[in-house]
């Protein structure tokens, strides 16, 4: 058999990899399509530095909520109360500072205490008293809405406090090199170096343990794509104002939670409880404490999100908080978190939040009437989940192997296919009154069909490794 052209092989490998891991890549592909569509509709304005910075700033509070919601949903719970709780906590801080003259930090510390206590209460009601989280947090939704109205006295309270201005519209440093923000360039460079080093370390580790892993050319392709994305981000932020505090907070929350969920004992325990609470219990994990932790963590992130939002608009308003929880839940599901529990990535929830806010931002920018946006959003959410279900059992495919197998079984395949077609024909032409004959022909047909399907399956599942010694 002839060895395949390396360039053709390279592209076949990329397609095979993408198809095999379509569940992981699907969302990124979707995001790329959304970016492309809006860039075309807005003549490039959408991905331009100013709008792109705005988009990331707007995404912040939803992303932070979605990160917390991922853990909630991973442990098979839900939290409907985060919208109004976030708005209430934000309003609490603003009103305390503006109307009562307390210092910002004092107000924040009290708010932290409030949200931690609320998290505890939610966790205890859910894990110990066994009230469904849907009911507990639905009640919370009403209660916090009322508290928001009480705290704001149903009126808007603007604030000119410097703290909110800095968090809401401030940027980290305005030192420039030429046209570029220096700090942003440094952060971008550091990110690239970290990614490359981590990839090399993992590759070496896997090699040492002789674990099966992606081949080098694929790994390099992956790294190149990621580096390209980082460079694009860096460029876009650097030519405008650099990194805002909102983006900094978002990135930090995502990074900390990513590390925490994937690399720590507590993170592993949370996923174990989500995957099978009884097995987790029998493995020595205190399920009750884990659930409380998850709701307290959600509470703290809700406070951060609320603070980001009121800072962004520098007001406390009784109308804030509507549908935040829905956006957060949607972002989590778009990010592929499973409602059955135990499965879901924090990073993907972040990307899910970007998808949602891109649609919101892009449609506005492209001049669509604002009432169409929820319809599109609902459609995207449905599509994402349907896609997730359809790709749940995706089989791995190796197109290089398939191509070799096609060569190898070519003659056999033609023969069996012919036999199958003939059997079909024979049955069609047979005398319909001759029952015994028909039975026999049906039997022949199913047999031929079986052989045909088996061979097709053998070709479909062929791997390149199987042919290494033949070539």
């Amino acid at each position: 058999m002839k060895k395949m052209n390396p360039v053709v092989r390279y592209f076949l490998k990329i397609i095979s990899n993408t198809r095999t891991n379509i569940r992981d890549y699907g969302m990124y592909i979707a995001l790329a399509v959304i970016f492309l569509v809006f860039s075309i509709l807005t003549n490039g304005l959408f991905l331009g530095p100013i709008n792109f910075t705005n988009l990331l700033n707007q995404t912040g509070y939803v992303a932070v909520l979605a990160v917390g919601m991922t853990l909630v949903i991973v442990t098979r719970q839900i939290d409907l109360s985060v919208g109004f709780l976030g708005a209430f906590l934000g309003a609490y801080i603003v009103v305390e500072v503006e109307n009562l003259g307390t210092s910002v930090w004092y107000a924040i510390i009290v708010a932290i205490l409030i949200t931690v206590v609320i998290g505890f209460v939610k966790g205890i009601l859910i894990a110990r008293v066994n009230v469904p989280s849907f009911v507990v947090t639905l009640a919370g939704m009403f209660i916090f809405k009322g508290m928001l109205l009480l705290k704001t006295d149903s009126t808007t309270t603007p604030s000119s406090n410097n703290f909110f201005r800095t968090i809401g519209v401030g940027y980290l440093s305005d030192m420039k090199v030429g046209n570029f923000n220096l700090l942003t360039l440094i952060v971008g460079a550091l990110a690239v170096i970290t990614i490359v080093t981590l990839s090399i370390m993992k590759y070496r580790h896997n090699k040492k343990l002789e674990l099966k892993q992606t081949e080098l050319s694929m790994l390099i392709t992956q790294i190149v794509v990621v580096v390209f994305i980082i460079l694009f981000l860096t460029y876009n932020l650097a030519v405008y104002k650099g990194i805002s505090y909102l983006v900094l907070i978002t990135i930090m929350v995502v990074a900390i939670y990513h590390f925490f969920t994937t690399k720590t004992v507590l993170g592993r325990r949370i996923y174990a409880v989500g995957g099978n609470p009884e097995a987790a219990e029998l493995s020595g994990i205190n399920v009750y404490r884990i659930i409380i932790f998850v709701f307290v963590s959600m509470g703290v992130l809700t406070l951060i999100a609320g603070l980001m939002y009121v800072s962004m608009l520098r007001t406390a308003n009784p109308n804030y908080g509507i549908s935040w929880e829905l956006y957060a839940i949607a972002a989590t599901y778009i990010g592929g978190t499973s409602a059955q529990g135990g499965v879901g990535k924090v990073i993907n929830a972040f990307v899910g939040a970007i998808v949602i806010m891109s649609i919101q931002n892009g449609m506005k920018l492209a001049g669509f009437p604002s009432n169409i946006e929820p319809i599109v959003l609902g459609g995207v959410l449905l599509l994402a989940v349907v896609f997730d279900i359809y790709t749940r059992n995706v089989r791995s495919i190796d197109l290089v192997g398939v191509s070799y197998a096609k060569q190898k079984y070519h003659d056999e395949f033609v023969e069996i296919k012919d036999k199958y077609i003939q059997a079909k024909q024979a049955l069609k032409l047979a005398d319909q009154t001759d029952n015994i004959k028909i039975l026999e022909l049906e039997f022949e047909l199913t047999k031929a069909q079986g052989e045909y399907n088996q061979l097709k399956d053998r070709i479909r599942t062929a791997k390149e490794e199987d042919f290494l010694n033949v070539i």
Partner: protein
Amino acid sequence: MAKNNILEMRSITKTFPGVVALSDVTFHVEEGEIHFIVGENGAGKSTLMKILSGIHGPGTYSGDIVFEGEVVSFNGIKDSVNAGIVIINQELALFPDLTVYENVFVGHEIKTRYGLVDWKKTREETKRYLDLVGLKIDIDTHVGSLGVGQQQLVEIAKALSQNVKLLILDEPTAALNEDDSANLLQLLINLKKEGVTSIMISHKLKEATEVADSITVLRDGKTISRLEKNEIDEAIIIKHMVGREIEDIFPKRPKYEPQDVVLETINFNAYDKNKNRYVVTNSNIRLHRGEVVGISGLIGAGRTELAHSIFGNPKNYKTSGGIFINGKLVNLNTPQRAIDHGIAYVSEDRKGNGLILSETIGENITLSALQKISRYGILNEMKQSSEAEKYVRNLNIRTPSIFQRIRNLSGGNQQKVQIGKWLFSEPSILILDEPTRGIDVGSKFEIYTIINDLIARGMSILLISSELPEILGMCDRIYVLAEGVQTAEFTMAEATAEKIMEKATI
């Protein structure tokens, strides 16, 4: 005299992605017989029955099904039930919160002229079918409050109410005690007279030798043989099933020399608040270092409950009396405490509460002792991989990699992962609860070998099992429980199957 074949399956071939589950399987069942299909796990029994009952519809397999002389093709359970084929799965398809009569007619309700449910007739009919299966209970009982044996009979009553001609039972006695099993088998013999043919899928060869009129043996997706009534013999069946002769299912180990007591319960009681009764009464067991002690008894005798009480009482029973480890009274009120005291518990229900199906082999193995692969609460993934690799190798877990998810493994391999998970916590006392339930003969032998290895290394094992041969073949000493009460203690020399059964059925 040759009878008519009620069912014939010809040249059935079925492939799943990458595997041939059935290849050219042919077998037939004669009218009015009890036909057994036996084979190791993965031999294709369940797949074959799924094709027969229409779960795998036409087009997904090749070959023919001939039922009552006609080629049939079923698209889903509804079709096969209409034709008179009813399958009763291992996991019963009943609604625990509905009453018996609602369950029997759910899906094929009797209707009045106006299209409403005719409850009067439903109740009458239900009574009639319950009499037929010999179940003497109130039809208003909620199915959830019945025992497993009784639930099975309700399922059969439901099948009869659907005018069943061919009844398929998938491992019906796996969860039943000896009495209920005997009852069920007698019922099948009775139903034969009513003209119901049955197919049984079973791991219990003793049943096959007792009641089968004929047997089909499958191995690796192929038909190996059909044995007629006069040819049925346990040794022959096993030989055909495994393709080799098993000299001795239970590997030998040296005679036990008494050592220190490592675990002891003294006047121990456990009260289940939900069930409102004592699940363990006055338990006094002793386990010595390097010893295998069997806990025998029927389902509901309190064996698992005793194990749970020792392993940190996760169900929060109210307990009294004492548990002693190495001579010291200990308070084991959470599983974590039990683990800290060197106890490990391999659950009887590996999918339900033993393993996390959505996670990988590596993640499951290390879950019982995360502190071993972490420092300051941060995991060392390199260590996780290398540790998991070690257990996969030592326990001979067959998998492409440690990153394989548990749900993709066979039962025997899942069980080995569960054992590996608990060996990882380095216990000194290992409680094995039905360690070989639902796994094939080959894997069973491997698990027995593992038990002997562990004993040789000084571990002590409590072995809970419903299979008497396993208890007799593996244990140094045996306790028998009946309804929560410890009724007997036997040494290996004293114990016989008859004696144990006698004490278990007090």
